[in-house]
């Protein structure tokens, strides 16, 4: 079954197409990477899929249902590219995760005791149990991304959408981050859609790749799709064939 189906998606601003006629689908339980140069419309595509910006024409179906209705049940977890927030916001990691734990409408003093346990287990599952009482503004890039992953999976979503999730994180942190995503994909059967500039990541972790530059250029398995010609089309003539050091993910 398709976890996500996007058809003829167009987003315009000032009568100019930011993205045009994007059509693709993602099978349940797969990891798809979206690649393209800066300004290719990758984040715009994600934001349109999530309903954060309007699109016309086009359709976005989540497990066969329009995104707007499907998402009200918390089927989508999202980690934005650069989380914009006030670093002086006196908010602990536990409190941040607690915003997403149901019941959403309740008095703080009668919230279920299970909430604390649930949050603790989530943080444990992403390997940052010790961050529970840390202020969100004091976290490093890698810690924040892990905390945001924990937040994104609070309601056991079916799809995880990650917009350049490891940007600004050191190489070791990136490695651990993508291992975590892969583990969540295997253990929970999560469908993962991620934007990445790192083709090494795409080869290693993605089942399929979607190349775009305002329009869809190609989709398919990374090893078959990311040919020298495609890379030059996507990134320009200056880019040569990418020699990756790792085996393609199987």
């Amino acid at each position, binding site marked *: 079954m398709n976890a996500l189906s996007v058809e003829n998606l167009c987003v315009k601003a000032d009568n100019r197409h930011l993205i045009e006629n994007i059509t693709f689908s993602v099978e349940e339980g797969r990891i798809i990477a979206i690649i393209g140069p800066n300004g290719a419309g990758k984040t715009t595509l994600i934001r349109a899929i999530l309903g954060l910006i309007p699109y016309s024409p086009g359709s976005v179906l989540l497990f066969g249902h329009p995104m707007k209705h499907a998402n009200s049940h*918390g089927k989508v977890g999202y980690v934005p590219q650069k989380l914009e927030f006030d670093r002086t916001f*006196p908010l602990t990691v536990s409190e941040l995760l607690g915003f997403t734990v149901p019941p959403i*409408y309740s008095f703080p003093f009668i919230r279920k005791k299970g909430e604390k346990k649930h949050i603790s287990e989530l943080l444990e599952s992403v390997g940052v149990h010790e961050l529970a009482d840390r*202020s969100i503004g004091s976290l490093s890039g890698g810690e924040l991304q892990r905390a945001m992953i924990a937040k994104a999976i609070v309601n056991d979503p079916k799809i995880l959408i990650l917009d350049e999730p490891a940007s600004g994180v050191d190489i070791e942190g990136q490695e651990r981050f993508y291992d975590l995503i892969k583990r969540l994909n295997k253990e929970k059967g999560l469908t993962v859609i991620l934007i990445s500039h790192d083709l090494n990541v795409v080869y290693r972790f993605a089942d399929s790749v979607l190349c775009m530059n305002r329009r869809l250029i190609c989709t398919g398995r990374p090893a078959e799709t990311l040919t020298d010609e495609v890379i030059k089309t996507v990134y320009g003539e200056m880019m040569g064939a990418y020699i990756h050091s790792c085996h393609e993910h199987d």
Partner: protein
Amino acid sequence: MITEFLSYPFIQRAFLASLMVGVLCPFVGNFVVLRRMSFFSDAISHSAFAGIAVGALLGIDLSMSSLIVAMLVSLLIAFLSEKTTLSHDTVIGIAFSGAIASGMLVIGMLKGYRVDIFTYLFGDILAITSTDLLFLFIISILSVVILLFFSKPLLQITFNRDLAQVEGINVRLFEYLLFFIIAVVVTVSLKIIGIILVTSLLIVPAAAAKNLASSMKHLFSLSCVFGLVSGFIGLIASVYLNTASGPTIVLVSIGIFFLTMLNSRRTH
């Protein structure tokens, strides 16, 4: 000495009012500070001034007219911010100037000197009636209960709008609700603290608490404690020093703010 001080009914009412406003304003003010909306609360208090002027002109209850105009202006600001490409502070600036200009225009049309209007401008806690106190009590309870019950979505939106929307929260509805509550709280506090200083009581205790707090729970508790202390000490000091209550309460809260600066977690 304090017992004697509290034996006067008007002082008792003033004392209760200062305690209620001391909790209510900082509680709501936390959202104002976290969302960087101080200018919004200033615009609302000044639009209440226009409401008071209209109420005086039409001969209707001034509290009611100020409340209606403040709520209308808050909804107008929310609507224009959403529907135009103008920045939020530009929209607020337009509403702010419009409210002041309308208020001054209408006051110019009134005959004679109106003491009741100037009570709202500078506030007079000692003139609080039992009806005012009851009204303030009801609004305080309702506002705090609503904000507590919807604290998760409201704080989630305050932290990051996009994440809130993706998680299925009706961002627009909750933002309108928050603007509405701020408008109500500002309006009911006017008679006590005055149009000019009401924003201070919203912001200063919350800002002082933000200097020290490491969690939301901490922030909300501390801000209310600072508000209560400001109200209590400010009122007593104003009686003994024979100064205006509103400014004295605000100055005490500013003193607390500077004290918290000494131990601020985020002072670099």
